[in-house]
């Protein structure tokens, strides 16, 4: 892909990120952080290509390690965020 095109995507995404997170209430700072952290595990996608390639033993070993670490990040991150968010309750709900 064209480099300029990738940089274009990068800049737009950064602006979008700023706009999205701009006014998150303090109550949600921890889940937001841990949810965003899970998204940063997207690097898993890159790791999959390495681990599943026909490359050398080193490439595959490193790729597999990357898959394992990124999966911990993704699975653990989403589950722990969900667990936290399940605890956030409004008043008079279910009482």
């Amino acid at each position: 892909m064209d480099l300029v095109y990738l940089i274009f995507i990068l800049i737009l995404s950064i602006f979008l990120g700023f706009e999205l997170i701009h006014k998150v209430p303090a109550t949600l700072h921890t889940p937001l952080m841990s949810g965003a952290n899970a998204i940063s595990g997207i690097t898993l996608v890159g790791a999959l290509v390495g681990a599943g390639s026909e490359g050398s033993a080193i490439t595959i070993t490193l790729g597999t390690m990357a898959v394992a670490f990124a999966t911990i990040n993704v699975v653990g991150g989403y589950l722990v965020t969900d667990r936290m968010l399940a605890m956030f309750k409004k008043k008079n709900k279910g009482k």
Partner: protein
Amino acid sequence: MSSDLLINLAYTVAAVLFIFGLKFLGSPATARRGNTISALGMLLAVLVTLLDQAVIDYRWILLGIVVGSIIGTLAARLVAMTAMPEMVALFNGFGGIASLLVGCVALSQTGLTSFLLLTIFLSILIGGVTFTGSLVAWGKLSEKLPGRPILFQGQRLLNAGLLLINFGCGVLFVLYPEQPFWLYLAVALSAALGVMTVIPIGGADMPVVISLLNSYSGLAACAAGFAINNNILIVAGSLVGASGIILTNIMCKAMNRTLANVLFSGFGAADGAAGKIEGEVTPMTVEDAYYVLEAAQSVVVIPGYGMAVAQAQHVVKELQELLEKNGCEVVYAIHPVAGRMPGHMNVLLAEADVPYDLLVEMDDINPRMENFDVAIVIGANDVVNPAAREIPGSPIYGMPIINADYARSVFILKRSLASGFAGLDNPLFYRKNSRMVFGDAKETLSGLIREFSS
């Protein structure tokens, strides 16, 4: 070619799901759904990547995914809510090392241009710093390492040197990619840099560091995205990078300090000699505290890291219910940097079933502070220190605080008169309307509950 198109279309959908996920995370009512939507985006991105023609052998992938899922699930299920800051730090570190490894793997591609090599170097640098930095943060938060800042002579010089040498190493790596030495050196230097930048940062500054590392993990994924020419990594990575920067900025503002000051000053290390405070503290027994609380019409609870340490969130909630039954209004005032990560207190109180609409942010509670009969300070110190308002020479001068001293009376639940994290005396303790209830916060609160029940 058609599978390439399909993959990229699916990535676009995944990116949209991430965006909606983050958007929904912005409101308590929709946050849980938002997290699920973002997880679906991740699932879609992973599944469709497996269709990629470059992926031939699924055995190793399966191994990595199974191992990672088991560890991730167990960690997420078993971790105690009080251990959440270190858990988040650890997950973050794993994201960092994954990006570092992806950068290394990207080296095996054919047709590496200088630009690709540069992005590979950047994913190694940022990934490495994120990994070891997060590990140190994890160690500090779980008290496996000393939480106080570790400082020594020439530290800044050494760090600046490390960074410069690392960049030099990056240049050589791009110029001579066939020499693996530069790669290894870059990995080692990045790892060292991560350790060196986090050890001088003290416990109370951890909210800043965690959000910054969170941002780095996104940027590392972003760099890895350039290295392997994958746009979903770039989009998702930069979304996370941007959100981390915003959180970092909010945390810094809440401490009235610049990011550079947090990272390099070793704040709270030693000198707390900013003037002795004249006056006497007035201790109070649990029984007397009970009589005041029984008569109170409105109470504001101001929790801090000490509440997390004493695991007192459940007894706090019990006391809140008893007070409410007694016809008293109870709210919680939460300082943005109370605790060890952004939103730490909110999570703990949510665990204890405190409805989130009772948690009031600093800027909303301060104008109402005079109307409260009692402010109960539980394990908070610097965030209620009036020196930040009144003593221009104080290291925390200018930091926005919760004006607990404006309440009609202030109860401070504290083990002893030891100063807070910043090593500062707290003039609040010496105020005429302040009463110190010494002892373990949890026991004091249990004592109050017993008084109410009897």
